[in-house]
């Protein structure tokens, strides 16, 4: 009963269009003041301690690193490299765009940033080459979504933070600890490469069917030059993933190191950015980080309320007595997340849903890392369809296309992503194999 009231209130407040963070906070306050004997002091306490967590600090660091990379010339060099490798196949620049998105995704933690970084260069180039605009926009909007699946990923950090410390018991009653940022990052590698390949294949197939232009084949020397030019960007992949896997850095430290690294290559190595631009990037990053951290604070309050009312456990027990197995549960989860993807952006969805879904999933025998990857793929799909789809907005801004037109344009790739979502949902090994092989699970 109480859970229904909590959710009804939350949804009602959110639909008025007020900031999600405020809706979360007001729901908690209303509930605490009227319906429960949770001492109000503990709410105050949680407000203070909610973001006093070193893991969360990876978010601002990755945002900062991403912003340096986005206009630090890294994207351009990655595009050149990708183009030199696959430009001569069917789909040419389109295929190169998918690959460049995948490469950029491996240094940036955000999807819209990937769309901007690659799309703002690639889209005009594709149109110039004779590709239909909608084809280009479709490729970019969907491939950009790789930004949160291929590590590093801000959404994965958010998932780790949102589920961290919550109590989850497996089917036999043993406590299962939540997924760490490092585990999630490594787990994202294989699904990321798979989805990139699938999107590439869709691009290739459509280009082959419609006989879109191809580029002349680059020589090995040209490829080598392009590779050498983007080596600084590629090294960042090694730095972040290698650093986390080898244990040289915690994910937060890796994020801080990559921000410094991105700054150095943007300003001193590639010199596509001058020192004058730095304050603006810092301010923009701080503004964006503050917004996310503010949602996190209030979401922590909300999930404390959930835990205090024992809601996830109640759902979990109800599900297991009702005989819901993991197959049905994940189907419901997917539908729920896809619906949520219609109205909210990724960070908020994960912050609100993950603490509730996590104990239930674990109780049904689902691995925390698997659930995390699955949620991330869901978020990717959500970013690519209206009415709320950040990637679509960004792509429409770059392509100067209407959202409706773009919605049709992304269809083939979106269907590919949905098929991939099914695969990730029901083949846990896609997510679990690599971290297990590396002894991280």
């Amino acid at each position, binding site marked *: 009963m109480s859970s229904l009231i909590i959710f009804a209130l939350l949804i009602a407040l*959110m*639909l*008025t*269009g*007020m*900031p999600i*963070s*405020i809706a979360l906070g007001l729901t908690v306050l209303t509930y605490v003041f009227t319906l429960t004997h949770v001492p109000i*002091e503990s*709410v*105050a*306490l949680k*407000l*203070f301690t909610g*973001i006093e*967590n070193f893991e969360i*600090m990876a978010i*601002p660091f990755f945002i*900062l690193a991403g*912003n340096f990379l*986005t*206009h630090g010339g890294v994207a*351009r060099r990655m595009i*050149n490299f990708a*183009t*030199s490798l696959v430009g001569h196949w069917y789909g040419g620049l389109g295929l190169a765009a998918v690959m460049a998105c995948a490469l950029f995704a491996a240094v940036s933690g955000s999807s*819209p*940033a990937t769309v*901007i970084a690659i799309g*703002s*260069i690639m*889209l*005009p*180039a594709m149109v110039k*080459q004779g590709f239909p605009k909608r084809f280009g926009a479709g490729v970019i909007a969907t491939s950009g979504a790789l930004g949160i699946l291929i590590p590093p990923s801000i959404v994965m950090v958010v998932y780790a933070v949102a589920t961290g410390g919550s109590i989850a018991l497996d089917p036999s009653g043993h406590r299962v600890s939540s997924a760490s940022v490092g585990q999630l990052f490594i787990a994202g590698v294989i699904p990321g490469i798979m989805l990139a390949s699938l999107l590439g294949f869709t691009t290739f197939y459509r280009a082959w069917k419609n006989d879109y232009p191809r*580029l*002349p084949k*680059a020589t090995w020397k*040209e490829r080598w030059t*392009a590779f050498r030019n983007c080596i600084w960007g590629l090294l960042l992949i090694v730095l972040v993933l290698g650093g986390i896997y080898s244990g040289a850095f915690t994910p*937060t*430290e890796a994020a*801080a190191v990559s*921000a*410094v690294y991105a700054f150095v290559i943007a300003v001193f190595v590639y010199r596509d950015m001058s020192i004058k*631009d730095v304050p*603006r*990037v810092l301010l*923009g990053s*701080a*503004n964006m*980080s*503050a*917004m996310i*951290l*503010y949602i996190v604070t209030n979401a922590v309050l909300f999930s404390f309320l959930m835990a205090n009312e024992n809601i996830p456990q109640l759902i979990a027990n109800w599900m297991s007595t009702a005989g819901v197995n993991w197959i049905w549960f994940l189907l419901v989860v997917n539908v729920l997340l896809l619906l949520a993807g219609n109205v909210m*952006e990724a960070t908020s969805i994960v912050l609100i849903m993950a603490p509730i879904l996590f104990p239930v999933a674990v109780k049904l025998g689902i691995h925390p890392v698997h659930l995390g990857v699955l949620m991330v793929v869901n978020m990717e799909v959500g970013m690519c369809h209206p009415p*709320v789809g*950040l990637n679509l907005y960004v792509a429409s*801004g770059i392509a100067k296309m209407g959202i409706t037109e773009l919605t049709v344009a992304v269809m083939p790739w979106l269907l590919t992503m949905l098929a991939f979502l099914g695969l990730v949902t029901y083949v846990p090994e896609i997510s679990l194999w690599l971290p297990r092989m590396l002894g991280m699970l």
Partner: protein
Amino acid sequence: MIGAATLLIFVAVAHRYLVTIPIFYPYLFPIDLSWAQELCIYMFVWMAKFGAAYGVRTGIHVGVDVLINVVNPKVRKATILFGLLCGALFTAVIGTMGAKFVYGLSATDQVTPDMELPSWIVYLAIPLGSYLMCFRFLQVAYTFARHGHLPHHDHGQVEGIDEPHMPGTASEAAEAVR
């Protein structure tokens, strides 16, 4: 703030690695950077609280605007005002709770674990940030009620990207493989 925090953690990590190299050990060992993490966290807490207030002014806080964008303008205006006033209410309540909490703390000798700063100073960020945020919400609500203007942040835009010079680089990209 974000820049300083980044540098701080970078230095702390660099220190951790360099100190294990024998020739640096004697110089770096006496430097104790165990407070770096804590300082970084508190810097971000302050940044987040005041940044959130700044964000109200720049309209960066995201909401679910699907529904209110399809209702008639009059209802829409009323709903948005309601949302803004809720924001003001929430931040006022939090600010007051925070102020009480900080006042209670200032009477104790509570300090932070690593730097041993008085806790109440660190936690001052909550009431100050919340009241400032409340003020911003009221400001935005007032402007909206009077002029119907609402700050809006374009989330599609990553700060600092200059679109105009992109087409040039685009042709370079295509040319690179010729």
